[in-house]
């Protein structure tokens, strides 16, 4: 006697199982770029946020910034990331003569070189990003590192938000 399975009639049951399998595969896969939530135009920096049992980790790509130029504040249930990206071109940044690397500086123009931009994709100037935290964190223990333009902020979870194993006692 066949086992009773609630659901649709056999052909639809198979279809449902196939859709379930497909859905499980899709949701278990690491999020691809196209599935992720892209920040709105002009929002900088883009961030990736991950959660482990002990901490929330936020990663942001901030090429060109010094560690001292990044300001991180944890306020309530959000983390605020502020800073400023410096000007790309040394001549425009007012650093006359700072062009280095091959001995060619200002050319034959005498003083400050005339600058022509062929492409400007990187963006400069002040930025501020507010990142909502999914759980309460221990603000006093937040740690941040900026290495090769990659900022990694580790926010340990508040004690009450960490998973806790409950010991079962005998009577």
């Amino acid at each position, binding site marked *: 006697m066949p086992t009773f399975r609630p659901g649709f009639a056999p052909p639809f049951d198979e279809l449902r199982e196939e859709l379930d399998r497909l859905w499980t595969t899709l949701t278990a896969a*690491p*999020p*691809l*770029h196209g*599935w*992720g*939530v*892209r*920040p709105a*135009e*002009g*929002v*900088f*920096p*883009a*961030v*990736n*946020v*991950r*959660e*482990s049992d002990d*901490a929330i*980790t936020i*990663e942001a*790509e901030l*090429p*060109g*910034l*010094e560690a001292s130029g990044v300001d991180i504040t944890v306020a309530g249930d959000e983390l605020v990331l502020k800073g400023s*990206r410096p000007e*790309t*071109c040394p*001549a*425009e940044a007012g650093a006359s003569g700072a*062009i*280095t*690397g*091959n001995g*060619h500086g*200002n*050319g*034959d123009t005498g003083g400050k070189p*005339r*600058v*022509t*931009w*062929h*492409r*400007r*994709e*990187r*963006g*400069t*100037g*002040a*930025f501020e990003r507010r990142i909502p935290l999914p759980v309460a964190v221990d603000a006093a223990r937040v740690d941040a590192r900026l290495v*090769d*333009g*990659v900022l*990694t902020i580790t926010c340990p979870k508040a004690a009450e938000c960490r998973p806790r194993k409950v010991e079962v006692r005998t009577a």
Partner: protein
Amino acid sequence: MVTHTQSAGATASRAEPSLTYQPNVDICDLGAEVLFVADIPGAHADGISVTFDDGVLDVQASVPVRDFSGRSVLQEYGIGGYRRSFRLGDGFDASQIAADYTKGVLTIHVPRLAAVRPRTVEVKAG
């Protein structure tokens, strides 16, 4: 505010670091040289290749996998290598091209040949 754009057409994820992005680039022409400034965060200098061949400047960089474990809550960008090429044409001194990588930014100095550099001509009074 910063007007930052993600690399066009880029697709990558932590699980597939072999995918490749186009880095965002500023190109600044100073007359005597052209400056290429590319955002390549997470790379190391020894993993970056800059070549100039037949008038084409080619930049490639590999990015090591970073330790970023846990369940993904928000993913706004992917992680992978970088590659981008620029056709510059003639008039550049390939032997004097110099590049440096610091704080996730690659800066390439491409000097023009002396014969084609812009020059200001002084007008003398008769």
